[in-house]
């Protein structure tokens, strides 16, 4: 019997080591769309960016000694699948954190369920203000800008240039707002309408449509009748392509178009389809990190941006990175580099309560993240509790295949407004 005690001790030790090894992992369930129409609208680049930063962190020792175990789920561009995947990740995969999520249509119902289950949720991409507005969420946080900001910035941008570029007062500038009819499009369009009215712009049409509609010719006809100078457009990829094609075929003319992220930010794809016809198009999104001036960032941040570019291009080859890559990479970086270490070190773990407390203490100044914005979340009691109050988007314009920031003024280069003569959509 003398050998039994050492054997038992060794077994106990092995079990303890195994248990320790198990505890040294943090499981994060990332939900993106890698099939269906949202995949090509930016969700896949966001997932590639997310995976790249998780790999990077693990290669550099993980977070406070914990390895990050990402579990990627495909929401298939469907709301019900997204919710089912979230449930599976929580109940079966036992993830510690839910993250990712491209579509606002998925975000809105998902986060209410996640919050009710007190599961810490970190949103990387979806922008609808409705995700947080008056929802009193406690365990859901979003470093990303929100749709009201998107809507407001496009109006401010064209108002600023009404006189100098369009040669008219804002009240004479005819603006049409068109949008897909999900929470994302509706949210941005509401922001457009509110701010454009405030800015005194002349809104000649505001209309939504289904992103899967097989025909938008009647919308184009109405736009022809309304004769807008500027189009404010919010959509995904298939609908934007259909709209632009039908607009050209039906002879719709306008002087500028401002897109609001999603499909409009997938410039390489738009360019493949329309060539020079989409030259001088705009999009609003949090800045694609690689477009920022490194001098405006805190020390060490630009090196991370270069890491992102290198890793993304290793997957997809050379070319312009859509802003969604930065959203996946940068926003996950904020979670892994700021919130998670504080939760572990200060609050003793990575349960939802510790993560929540750590997130509420996040205080990153402007220039402290790869996309330029700072991070501080609206506190409980605020109508947007959980939303990053320091996030801001930028207006980007695509000129001859290159994206450049044209708003806000502080970091902007000169925009090309209106479309030059000879442009496919120029009057």
């Amino acid at each position, binding site marked *: 019997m003398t050998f039994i005690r050492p054997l038992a001790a060794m077994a106990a030790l092995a079990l303890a080591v195994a248990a320790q090894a198990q505890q040294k992992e943090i499981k994060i369930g990332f939900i993106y769309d890698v099939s269906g129409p949202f995949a090509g609208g930016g969700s896949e680049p966001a997932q590639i960016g997310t995976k790249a930063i998780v790999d990077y962190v693990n290669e550099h020792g993980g977070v406070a000694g914990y390895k990050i175990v990402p579990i990627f789920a495909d929401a298939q561009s469907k709301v019900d699948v997204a919710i089912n995947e979230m449930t599976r990740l929580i109940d079966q995969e036992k993830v510690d954190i839910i993250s990712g999520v491209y579509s606002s249509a998925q975000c809105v119902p998902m986060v209410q369920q996640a919050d009710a289950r007190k599961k810490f949720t970190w949103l990387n991409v979806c922008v609808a203000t409705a995700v947080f507005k008056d929802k009193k969420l406690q365990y859901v946080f979003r470093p990303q800008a929100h749709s009201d900001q998107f809507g407001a910035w496009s109006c401010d941008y064209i108002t600023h240039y009404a006189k100098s570029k369009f040669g008219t007062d804002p009240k004479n500038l005819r603006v049409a707002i068109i949008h897909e009819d999900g929470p994302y499009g509706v949210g941005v369009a509401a922001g457009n309408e509110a701010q454009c009215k405030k800015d005194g712009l002349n809104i000649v049409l505001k209309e939504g449509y289904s992103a899967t*509609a*097989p*025909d*938008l*010719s*009647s919308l184009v006809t*109405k736009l*022809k*009748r309304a004769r807008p100078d500027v189009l404010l457009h919010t959509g995904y990829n298939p609908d934007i392509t259909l709209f632009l094609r039908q607009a050209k075929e039906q002879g719709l003319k306008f002087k500028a178009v401002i897109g609001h992220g999603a499909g409009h930010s997938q410039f390489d794809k738009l360019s493949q389809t329309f060539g020079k016809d989409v030259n001088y198009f705009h999009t609003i999104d949090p800045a694609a990190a690689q477009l920022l001036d490194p001098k405006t960032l805190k020390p060490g941040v630009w090196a991370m941006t270069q890491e992102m570019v290198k890793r993304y291009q290793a997957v997809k080859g050379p070319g312009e990175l859509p802003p969604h890559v930065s959203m996946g990479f940068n926003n996950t970086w904020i979670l892994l580099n700021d919130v998670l270490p504080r939760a572990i070190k200060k609050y003793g773990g990575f349960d939802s309560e510790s993560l929540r407390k750590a997130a509420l203490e996040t205080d990153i100044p402007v220039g402290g993240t790869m996309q330029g914005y700072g991070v501080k979340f609206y506190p409980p009691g605020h109508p947007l509790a959980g939303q990053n109050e320091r996030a801001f988007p930028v207006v980007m314009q695509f000129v001859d295949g290159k994206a450049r920031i044209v708003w806000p003024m502080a970091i902007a280069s000169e925009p090309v407004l209106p479309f030059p003569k000879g442009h496919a959509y120029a009057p």
Partner: protein
Amino acid sequence: MEIFDIYLLEAVLNGLLLGGLLALLSLGLNLIFGVIDVVWICYAELIMCGMYAVYYLHVQYHWPLYAAMPAAIVIVAMLGVLLHQLVIKPVLAAEPINQLLVTGGVLFFLQAAATLAFGIDFKNLGVSLPAVRIGEMSFSAARLIAFGAAVLGVLGLFVFLRKTYLGTAIRAISQDRAIMPLMGVSPGRIYTLTSALGGALAGLGSCLLVLQYDVHPAIGLSFGPITFLICVMGGLGSMAGGLIAAFVFAQFISVGGFFFAVEWGYVIAFAFFIGMMFVRPQGLFRR
């Protein structure tokens, strides 16, 4: 807004062109149901396959469109035959709901297979047809071609079914499945031929759609449900009913979307469909 203005006329004409496209899509589905009595819920996914065929033959293998498009029609016709032989034939005697579920399964299979095989990127031919201008109005040349092809497709099918021996056999077997084998007609051969014909019509549809839409694995979602509803509204299996329903539906979408919000065009069209199902559950034209 003036009630009758040039833009209303443009909306009406665009509705007519959309109707032609939808009519063509519903034609094959109706033919198959009319003869074989099985609904190919995956019909729009066959169209998606045809669109990919045109894309790859033209863009990757540099075939001219006049060669790529007939090849795509043949490919989709063969897919139709394969679908019949491998999936439909074993369930011909099964309950309709089982047949529906099986073709529904094929729908998801084709979508997933396309995602794996071709990726999620939106692909397009890079072909831009000029617009056709009539005064202040401007129309899509691709839509005009689709409209013309739909008219020719309908006429061609009509002539084939009325004037040829095979067409007569197809019509006969759709009218009385039990008696025709006694008269020397092989139902198996007719079903295979019909599947090929239905597939070829899907192929023709794909050639016209690929001129107007990007190809991606989920493109069928934009057309599958609406095509099915048009067939049901016209009376499943009734080709004349499908044609009329397609034009009615398209006008609701186009003119309804012009007078109200675009979304309302679809709401009105679907509300009309629901209303019709109460009044004439068998569709506008009973087969």
